[in-house]
């Protein structure tokens, strides 16, 4: 058992792989169509998913916990099917199966050597909790509780809760709240632990909402009522089956928790909106354990927004009625390249004001290269090609119907259409050795990217790159190549519309290192955007933190935008954690200063627990 500190890139041993788990909970959704961990589906606790086992193995390796009954159950429940390797490799280039094997070996060896298995002692509180949720859905076994000690935040230290409980109904939640109030026990609600501010970890009780996965469509009224355990990916899938779309956040994020914490935002927020635009109604269990319905006139006004103030949670969101949007047959995606951020911003503002396109977003070379590339090494090479050879530091993703795409063409912007995107994506390995790339840049001297207007450019690109799933898969671990080759024959894997709807690639941004996004709302004002972009960069440089422009999406008819700047950090390096915390504090202070100075800039952290607000209150009050 090791107890050393390793770099994030070093994943040669099970321990190193385990401690480099990004905790994104992507192993809880079937985003590749390859299936997910059987035991996780059955047991629901995160501990029974690969993510939980990674945390457990890390803790065991560091002698933080003992072998318990649940620990044995968790280890035994893994059938080493290897599904998690596909998922985790796709996103983070890691293969958790070796951790699962190591966990099983570790437990087996311990028992074989006569090690004592610790039994969690059931106390009065646990007995009371179990009376409410049933024997199987509450525990104080440390093999379970340790797996709830992390979230995505670099700001908070891990905290191990005393109990984890998984209710199945809102009535059970109400009873739990009353029980905890009566016994003065701290409780914390947890979705999939994607909070960036450290609010999903705590001592006391963690209420994991993942069992409540009800999905009820009311197509007549264009909404779907969901329980708090429904993940964005799963909901989108159900909506798509019925011919609809929802505005979805991160795929593994639970939708109710997502609204509560930040409000849902995506590139589709350009037309679908943010915050209260995304739902019709919601139900809550308040602090006293009573149910209230958001649209009831006597309920607390969660549509309001208070800037520069951290509010307390209004309660537990136990259901939300999410708006459904129509899907048009001729929707397609394009990528419009730009040499400067200023030009890209002008373009998205113009499109948003004119209501051109359904979804719009500016992404930088870091984003696009990371999303497209199957490995870190490849991403780094592709980023250089995009910036240096193709002179494409920025791309605007546009999803629109045929009329929107035609309009953009008429506006005079050359773009990569779906066919060119396919060629570029599946031909990525050839791109790196393509001699003709240097000519392409010179070709753009007079008019940037004019080669994209050539009628036969797609044909030439296909000839030059020989794109295919087989070629693309050459970049991945040889053992996984057959799987990846098959995977990339699935049309959705290269479909810009699908990729934007499901956002499965965004987690790849944390492949090199976990990242902390600095998110703000502000007017689409080039001077202001460039100023803040520069200042966020300078802060990161001051603290020696890897950083890059994230994305910009216009909202509310082009009056405002969402702007993300990303700071990257090694979550296993205490010194880097210290610096990212300082950088984050300084960045937030900067946003506060601009918020006061301009009256138009709004920092994202204040949306926590105010995610149900009207966007007008958030953006303009």
């Amino acid at each position, binding site marked *: 058992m090791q107890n050393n500190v390793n770099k994030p890139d070093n994943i040669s041993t099970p321990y190193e792989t385990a401690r480099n788990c990004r905790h994104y909970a992507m192993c809880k959704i079937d985003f590749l169509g390859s299936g997910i961990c059987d035991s996780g589906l059955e047991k629901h606790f995160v501990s029974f998913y690969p993510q939980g086992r990674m945390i457990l193995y890390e803790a065991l390796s560091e002698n933080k916990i003992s072998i318990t009954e649940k620990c044995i159950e968790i280890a035994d429940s893994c059938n080493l099917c290897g599904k998690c390797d596909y998922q985790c490799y796709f996103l983070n280039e890691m293969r958790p199966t070796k951790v699962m094997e190591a966990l099983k070996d570790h437990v087996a060896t311990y028992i074989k050597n006569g090690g004592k298995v610790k039994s969690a002692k059931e106390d009065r509180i646990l007995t009371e909790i179990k009376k409410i949720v049933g024997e199987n859905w509450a525990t104080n076994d440390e093999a379970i509780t340790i797996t709830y000690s992390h979230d995505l935040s670099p700001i908070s230290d891990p905290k191990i809760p005393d109990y984890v409980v998984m209710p199945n109904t809102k009535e059970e939640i109400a009873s739990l709240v009353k029980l905890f109030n009566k016994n003065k026990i701290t409780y914390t609600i947890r979705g999939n632990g994607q909070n960036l501010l450290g609010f999903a970890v705590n001592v006391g009780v963690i209420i994991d909402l993942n069992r409540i996965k009800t999905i009820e469509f009311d197509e007549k009224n264009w909404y779907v009522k969901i329980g708090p355990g429904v993940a964005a990916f799963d909901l989108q899938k159900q909506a798509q089956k019925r011919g609809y779309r929802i505005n979805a956040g991160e795929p593994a994020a639970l939708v109710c928790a997502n609204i509560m914490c930040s409000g849902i935002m995506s590139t589709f927020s350009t037309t679908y909106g943010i915050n209260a635009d995304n739902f019709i109604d919601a139900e809550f269990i308040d602090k006293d354990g009573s149910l209230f319905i958001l649209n009831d006139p006597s309920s607390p006004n969660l549509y309001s927004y208070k800037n520069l103030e951290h509010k307390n949670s209004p309660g537990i969101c136990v259901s939300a009625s999410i708006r459904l949007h129509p899907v048009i047959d001729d929707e397609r995606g394009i990528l419009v390249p730009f040499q400067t951020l200023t030009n890209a911003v002008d373009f998205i503002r113009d499109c948003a004001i004119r209501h051109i396109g359904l979804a719009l977003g500016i992404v930088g070379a870091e984003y696009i290269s990371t999303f497209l590339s199957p490995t870190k090494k490849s991403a780094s090479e592709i980023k250089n090609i995009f910036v240096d050879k193709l002179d494409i530091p920025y791309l605007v993703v546009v999803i629109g119907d045929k009329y929107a795409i035609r309009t953009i063409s008429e506006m005079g912007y050359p773009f990569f259409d779906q066919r060119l995107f396919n060629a570029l994506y599946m031909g990525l390995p050839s791109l790196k050795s393509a*001699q*003709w790339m*240097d*000519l392409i840049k*010179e*070709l753009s*001297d*007079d*008019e940037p990217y*004019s*080669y994209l207007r*050539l*009628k*036969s*450019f797609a*044909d*030439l690109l*296909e*000839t*030059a790159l*020989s794109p295919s799933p087989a070629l693309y898969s050459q970049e991945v671990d040889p053992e996984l190549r057959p799987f990846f080759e098959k995977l990339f024959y699935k049309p959705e894997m290269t479909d810009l519309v699908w990729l934007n709807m499901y956002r499965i690639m965004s987690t790849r941004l944390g492949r090199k290192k976990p990242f902390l996004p600095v998110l703000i709302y502000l007017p689409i004002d080039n001077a202001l955007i460039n100023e803040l972009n520069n200042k966020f960069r300078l802060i990161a440089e001051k603290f020696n933190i890897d950083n890059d422009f994230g994305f910009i999406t216009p909202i509310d008819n082009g009056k405002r935008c969402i702007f993300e700047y990303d700071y990257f950090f090694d979550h296993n390096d205490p010194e880097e954690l210290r610096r990212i915390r300082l950088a984050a504090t300084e960045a937030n202070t900067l946003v506060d200063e601009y918020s006061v100075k301009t009256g138009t800039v709004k920092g994202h952290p204040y949306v926590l627990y105010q995610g149900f607000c009207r966007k007008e209150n958030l953006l303009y009050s």
Partner: protein
Amino acid sequence: MSLQNKPTTALTGATGFLGSHLMASMLTTGYRIIALGRSNKEGTLKERIFKLMRWFGIEALDGQLELVEIDFLKPFLGLPESEYKELCAKTEQIIHCASDTSFSERKRENVFKSNVASLKGILDFAEDSKADFFHYISTAYVAGTGVTYCKEILSSAKSFTNVYEESKAAAENIISRFCQKSSIRLSIIRPSIVYGDSQTGRSLKFNALYFPIRSAQSIRDIYLNDLYNNGGIKAAKNGIYLDKDGYLFLPLKIYLPEEGYLNIIPVDYFVNATIKIIENCSQGGIYHLTNNLPTTMKIVAKYYEQLMKVRGVEIIYGLQPDNLLRNPAEELFDRFIEPYRPYLSDKRVFDRTNACLATDNLNPPEFTYEIFKKCIEYAISVNWGQSIL
């Protein structure tokens, strides 16, 4: 010739194609050079010049080369006043070779800033220094469009092929007026299109003549890859195939507006002729360094086919018919050569009277297959400049 007999020469553009060749040659013939320039993202002025010197095989400079980081747009060239005065005191002649050679209309502002607005700094310096001779490296194409016989006189053209030509013509006029007013002798040296060394094939830059060849080679390689590695399905669709003798048949119809010439000179001729003009021509003047035996694209295409083992290139003089169906290779090639098209079938003839007199009838060589082969093989060996320095 000893250093004492040669005027100390301030040279701009020493990191560029023509400037670097000129500098290297002048250093080896005993000139003391003060290279005026700037650092850029590729390195400091010193780093860039030293890289170039290594490429030219020049190592020991014995105090012959001085480097001064300057900014044309700032007073005193951006130098402290004392340094500026010192520079002025030792400069005996100036060769202004620095230039933005972009043809792009989109870059008009930058091109005019580099080629015209920045003149004030260098001309003020000329006036302040003890230099009594100013040599300006221009282009033969300041003659503009619509002219058939181009004399060695100042251009009064109103229309040009591109912004580069226009800016160089404007610069010539400004410099000429200034030198006249300041009683500084002026020579204006106007090369046509310059390619690599006719003896060795070596070159530092691979645009102009090289660009169409490089474009055609890239297109060839794309289809060869398709034929060798992917069954040639795409190639077959476009009528591209490998002949039995290993030649690639790649139909490439190149339309040029009218029958004309490609006026190219090798850089060794440019350097030798320029040094002769600088040394022989005491009163100054305008000199066309052009080729009186210009080549044609038909000849270049033939050379290309021979060297690259390709068939199917066809030069067609006349306007391209509307709605002509172009294969992908032709469409891409058309786009690649678009900025250079006016120079590929040029009907202009250049007066060389002054140049012949000043250079003792030094003439550039005819563009033969041997020269073509040498130059293109060198270009390919250095990956068209990607792995040169």
